């Protein structure tokens, strides 16, 4: 009855493309308590997927499992590596997983201090990933850092300042630049606008929207804020008590929510 969830239907697609990331029956228990259970979805290149739910709904557990920061109890997460082959992430060597995390992936934390080196300068924060993949030319690293500071609207004159001297919004933009500098194909974001003032939030969202479009990034963004999901995402997964309540096209979910819980979310947050 509902619009079909995008599981098997992916196969009927005429193109020979494959998903970038494929999650199947992912389950994570904390002891006997469910973190998240039986989650399946695909994400394709250039697609923005929002995982929405209230605190404790399991969305952060899910994000941490997908990004291999937390091992799942069961289920698989496969990723299409640059060789074009889908690899089960939890069968990769740790070295390969970590390499993925600092090259082909990004992770934007809610609290920028978790994702930045607060004692290193802005330029070093942006340049670190370049150096990690072997860039050994100071001039080039610095040029790239200046370019990225500009793209996230941080004045190039701040390049040698430490993020401690930055406002919350600037820190978050710096964290984004630090993640995007290696041109990742998939970026995870955990409440990226979480602790920010409304006006700062709007600017950041707008910036993110532009970057995602320009770079053709695939993004998995965890948020409790439906306005963030509306503005950034193509597709949404609504979670409650560790399970998927509903998933589909973002504007379909918001304009015509089907599940009782989604209706409650939509009516309570977007009223008016």
């Amino acid at each position, binding site marked *: 009855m509902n619009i079909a969830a995008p599981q098997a*239907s992916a196969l009927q697609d005429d193109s020979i493309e494959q998903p970038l990331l494929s999650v199947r029956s992912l389950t994570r228990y904390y002891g006997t308590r469910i973190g998240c259970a039986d989650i399946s979805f695909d994400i394709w290149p250039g697609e923005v997927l929002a995982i929405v739910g209230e605190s404790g709904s399991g969305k952060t557990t899910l994000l941490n499992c997908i990004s291999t920061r937390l091992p799942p109890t069961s289920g698989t997460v496969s990723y299409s590596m640059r060789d074009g082959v889908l690899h089960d992430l939890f069968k990769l060597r740790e070295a390969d997983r970590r390499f993925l995390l600092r090259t082909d992936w990004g992770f934007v934390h809610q609290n920028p201090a978790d994702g930045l080196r607060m004692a290193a300068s802005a330029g070093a924060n942006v340049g670190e990933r370049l150096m990690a993949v072997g860039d050994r030319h100071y001039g080039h690293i610095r040029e790239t850092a200046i370019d990225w500071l500009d793209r996230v609207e941080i004045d190039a004159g701040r390049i040698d300042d430490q993020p401690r001297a930055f406002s919350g919004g600037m820190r978050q933009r710096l964290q984004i630049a630090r993640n995007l500098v290696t041109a990742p194909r998939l970026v995870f974001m955990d409440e990226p606008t979480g602790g920010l003032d409304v006006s700062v939030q*709007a600017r950041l969202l707008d910036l993110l929207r532009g970057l995602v479009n320009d770079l053709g990034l695939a993004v998995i963004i965890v948020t409790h804020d439906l306005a963030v999901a509306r503005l950034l995402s193509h597709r949404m997964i609504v979670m409650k008590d560790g399970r998927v309540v509903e998933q*589909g096209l973002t504007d379909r979910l918001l304009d015509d929510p089907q599940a009782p819980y989604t*209706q409650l979310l939509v009516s309570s947050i977007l009223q008016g």
Partner: protein
Amino acid sequence: MSKPHALIVSGLAKSFTMHLRGDIELPVISGADFVLTCGQCAVLGGPSGAGKSSILKMLYGNYAVNAGSIVVRHRGRETDLAGAEPRKILEIRRETIGYVSQFLRVMPRVSALDVVAEPLVFSGAGREEAARRAAGLLQRLNLPERLWALPPATFSGGEQQRINIARGFITDHSILLLDEPTASLDAANRAVVLQMIAEKKAAGVALLGIFHDADVRDAVADTIIDVTGFAPDRRAA
């Protein structure tokens, strides 16, 4: 009737289940059958609340479909939009079905020109080409050039409406859905929109619209689809 069909709707049904109000069921549409023909404009007719907007939204994928099919010619193939996965719907929106909504969803900090050019950029055109065509449309719709570089958030209703129209008309989509595009326009701009609709028809585009203004409706409609015929209560009776 030698012209080919762009979209075929059959047995379409829609109802809302209000889970927060004791699961009451609100049927809106049932058994809707109609076709959109290339190069013609069909107009949804019927009183307010008859479900005209709901049909438009189902055709664009904003509303879920309870029963029936919406078969659209996309990439040279018949594709049922009613059961399509989200990725497919996004692809159809990018390439085949355009939509002019009643209200502009304002994006902060994006200039009017970029708002208009965006759908063309997404469908793969170059930025310069898109900007050129966007400028042409805004010119035609008499939007003062000094506004082009500004975000439309502070524009008047009529100005926003024209941005919206330009945004919908800029692509070469083969199907165009129009939700009251002329509602807040003055006579001169209304005439421009009518002319633009005529050009789309001449280009073989299939249009489906909601127009409350009888003059406009008469001017553009090749067929009227009477939505009262799809009312669920009438069936029940």
